[in-house]
């Protein structure tokens, strides 16, 4: 019997960037050795360095540079029976998409040849110009036209590039987010007639919205347009996915709000190899050891961690801080963090370890701190729990649930003072923390065990396999009484 071939559709993470989602993917692939995986990745630039050693069951990798569309001259009309005018089709789809109606995705995708984008047509064709002008008059009457045009152009270039990307052959397309990966998986589903599984860690459209609102270079109506683009893509993905999985219930509710059908949604929490992180703890006397485990990137808000360290050192001079994680992803930001530590005069108490085996640190850390401004269900908290270490974190994603809503250990985003208070609380209450650590470890074993995660995804994949059961344990049928593989509701 042929091995199942699953195409993982990924944007901006595995295998080029380390982090929670990438670790999750790597563990999933490694844990499901009976399945062949194909990677269909979307990257901001070509020839990025691989950050992971590919497991042997990764049989193909196709990377598409998002900003480089496939070459394509202006095409007035697609060739072949049943194919319409691609430009008219694209514009019609645009209207429907942003009017809140379901776009004619079948028509849009059928009107394009694989490997030939509409991105040039969308500006070269005079109808597109007239259309953009009319849309601008309606939606952007108060701001410069250039704002609207560039937002339209850049967003649609990306959309058309993604739709024109040639998906690898697979039995199932599994996207790790909505956005462009989700759109590509949906296009693959429509082109190849294969099921589309959507797994969300964070909520892509929400994350992009935050970025857009913070970006100084996104002006005027551009903010609204980009936000609408991402929201509409998310909605289209939710409505058209054969199954949407989320890490926790709150995110599932967001999916439902944007159009996912309840019977096609399921929560599958993160999972870690608890045994691996069950390290023998060794108390290092003479200091209080505070760990930050993660990449040195803005989203982790390392600067808040450093300010909290400064505040804590004023009260707990024996505290020591470890930033354990790669610092080469955003070197400028990492340099800023080092400068901040020096400016705060705490650089002799703070160690930037770089990429290290985190287990060595889990043996002696007294607390693990997370200061991220955005997370889904952070693996680092689960790892710390498995190692028996208490955590202090900002209130992001599923953290509140993981920390059982304990306000003493949860701080608002960017609140260094509350983070410092939380760390001090851990220091001052060793007995309570020991009890909490034991309880958290037991809960991790019960709910967040990697074996369970792999079993559920293994079953889901099997359920969607050609000729597979209509519903698999832990999959759509098991959780929600879901659809037949690849079928439509």
């Amino acid at each position, binding site marked *: 019997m042929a091995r199942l071939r699953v195409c993982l559709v990924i944007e901006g993470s595995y295998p080029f960037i380390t982090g929670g989602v990438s670790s999750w993917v790597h563990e999933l692939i490694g844990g499901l050795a009976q399945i062949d995986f194909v990677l269909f990745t979307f990257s901001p630039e070509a020839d990025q360095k691989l950050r992971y050693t590919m497991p042997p069951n990764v049989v193909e990798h196709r990377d598409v540079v998002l900003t480089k569309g496939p070459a394509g001259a202006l095409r007035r009309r697609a060739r072949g029976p049943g194919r319409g005018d691609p430009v008219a089709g694209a514009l019609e789809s645009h209207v429907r998409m942003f009017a809140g109606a379901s776009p004619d995705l079948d028509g849009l995708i059928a009107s394009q040849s694989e490997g030939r984008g509409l991105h*040039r047509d969308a*500006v*070269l064709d*005079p109808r597109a*110009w007239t259309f953009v*002008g009319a849309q*601008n*008059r309606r939606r*952007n*009457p*108060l*701001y*410069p*036209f*250039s704002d609207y*045009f560039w937002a339209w*152009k850049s967003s649609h270039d990306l959309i058309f590039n993604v739709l024109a990307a040639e998906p690898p052959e697979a039995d199932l397309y599994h996207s790790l987010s909505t956005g462009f990966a989700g759109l590509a998986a949906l296009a693959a589903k429509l082109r190849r007639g294969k099921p589309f599984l959507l797994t969300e860690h964070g909520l892509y459209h929400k994350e992009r919205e935050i970025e857009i609102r913070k970006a100084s270079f996104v002006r005027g109506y551009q903010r609204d347009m980009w936000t609408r683009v991402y929201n509409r893509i998310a909605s289209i993905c939710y409505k058209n996915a054969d199954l949407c999985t989320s890490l926790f219930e709150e995110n599932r509710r967001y999916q439902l709000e944007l159009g996912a059908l309840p019977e096609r949604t399921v929560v599958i929490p993160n999972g870690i190899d608890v045994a691996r992180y069950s390290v023998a703890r060794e108390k290092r006397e003479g200091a209080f050891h505070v760990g930050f485990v993660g990449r040195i990137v803005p989203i982790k808000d390392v600067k808040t961690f450093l300010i909290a360290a400064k505040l804590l050192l004023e009260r707990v001079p024996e505290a020591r801080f470890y930033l354990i994680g790669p610092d080469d992803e955003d070197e400028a930001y990492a340099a800023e963090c080092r400068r901040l530590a020096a400016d705060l005069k705490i650089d002799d108490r703070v160690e930037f370890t770089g990429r290290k085996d985190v287990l060595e640190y889990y043996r002696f850390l007294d607390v693990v701190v997370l200061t991220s401004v955005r997370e889904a269900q952070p693996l680092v908290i689960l790892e710390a729990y498995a190692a028996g270490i208490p955590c202090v974190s900002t209130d992001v994603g599923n953290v509140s649930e993981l920390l059982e809503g304990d306000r003493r250990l949860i701080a608002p985003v960017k609140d260094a003072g509350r983070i410092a208070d939380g760390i001090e609380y851990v220091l001052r209450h060793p007995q309570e923390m020991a009890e909490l650590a034991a309880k958290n470890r037991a809960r991790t074993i019960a709910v967040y065990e990697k074996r369970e995660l792999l079993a559920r995804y293994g079953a889901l994949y099997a359920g969607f396999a050609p000729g597979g059961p209509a519903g698999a344990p832990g999959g759509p049928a098991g959780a929600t009484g879901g659809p037949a593989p690849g079928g439509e509701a």
Partner: protein
Amino acid sequence: MAGIGFELRRLMETRTISGFLGAAFSGTFIVAGPWIISAASVAAAQRLPFFAGEGVALAFTGAMVWAFALSLCASSGPLYAFVRLSADLVYDRRMGEASTLLLKTAAIAAAASLPLGAAAAALLAPGAANAPLRAAFALLLAAVDTLWVAMMTVTVLRKYGLILASYGAGMLVMYFLAARLGPVLGAAGGLFALAAGYGLTALLLVAITVVSLGAAPYPRALRGLLACGWKCRNLVLSGFAYAVGTWADKVVLWAFRGVASPGTGFAVFPPYDTAFYYANLGIIPGLVFFTLATETDFHLDLKRFLVFLAHRRQPDIEAARVRLARNSRIAIRDQSLFQGVVTVALALLAPALSAGLGFSAPTFVVLVAAAFFQLVLLTALNMLFYLELYRDAAVSALAFAFLNAGLSLGAASHPVLPLGLPFLLACASAAAIALAFLRRGLAAFDRIVYLRASGEEFGR
């Protein structure tokens, strides 16, 4: 030339008669000064006694006209690319590199012209007796080609007095050399003198530019020029086609009805060439009007429109586009009215002028009318260049070249047709085509700019 246009407009805006006359006089002198100085000097030199020798005047005039025709046809295309690259460098304030580009291009122009001139002369003036004439022809071609290159950059400096002084110095040298060499070498002596005069002028202009702008290393100047030529190939084609269009009718007439000095093929057809020469002087008022009003207005409107395009709301942009199109139309109309009056006046004066200047009045009238349309064509082409609609400009110029060549060939076998009619029809048709392209381009120019900003080489 938009720069001098602005300066002259400031004079006009004093709203005094002296200001207006000063602007008109300065404009005429700047636009046509070099032309007038050269023509007057050559005319003066042709009154030297040695020109009275048998066949000397015809050989001299033939070789000189052929050198100019060949020079313009061969160098106009590359020259347009050179102007474009120089303009880009000047815009980027890379003056030293623009200066170095000028030096290198001038050297290449001179070096490439010599073998071309020698080859053409070998074809047109074979035989040992013509050896001095061939050498003089090749040198003249090199000098003229270098002069075109030098003129293109030096205008950026706006040192118009120095430009005219350089021409004056060159022509003075020409005159004195002609007086010395002419009696010894005949027509070849005259040509050597002319080559020296133009060569000196070119050298002076290059020196003025290099001294004013300085020189900065530009090691890839030639590669840059080739790349620019390839990128703006339609611009190059426009230059080439326009030059061919300008000369096609003359060459056909020279071939079919021309006379040449014995032993040479430098044929000319004086009844037509003389009328054409004087008729062409008739566009000087229109050129001044173009420099003072049409081009500067268009430049300002275009600039305003581009600012609107980047920073304003859509209704403002559309209003600016409509204004640009309307003002361009009005500017061309006003210029045409002005030139029309000049044309009618010249046509009315034709009988009187023809008697004194030695051409046929009907031919002159036809050619004056053709000059009117040629000015319209030039204006429209210039505006298309501003809009970087090089493809449209190239099509218009090609239409001009093909129509003029085709109609002239057709008319060559029908001597009853008035002389200059093919040229008139070609000018009028090509002007109409260019105006239609201009109208279409202006109507969609907002889209065109955004397309280009999106990375499309639309219309270039």
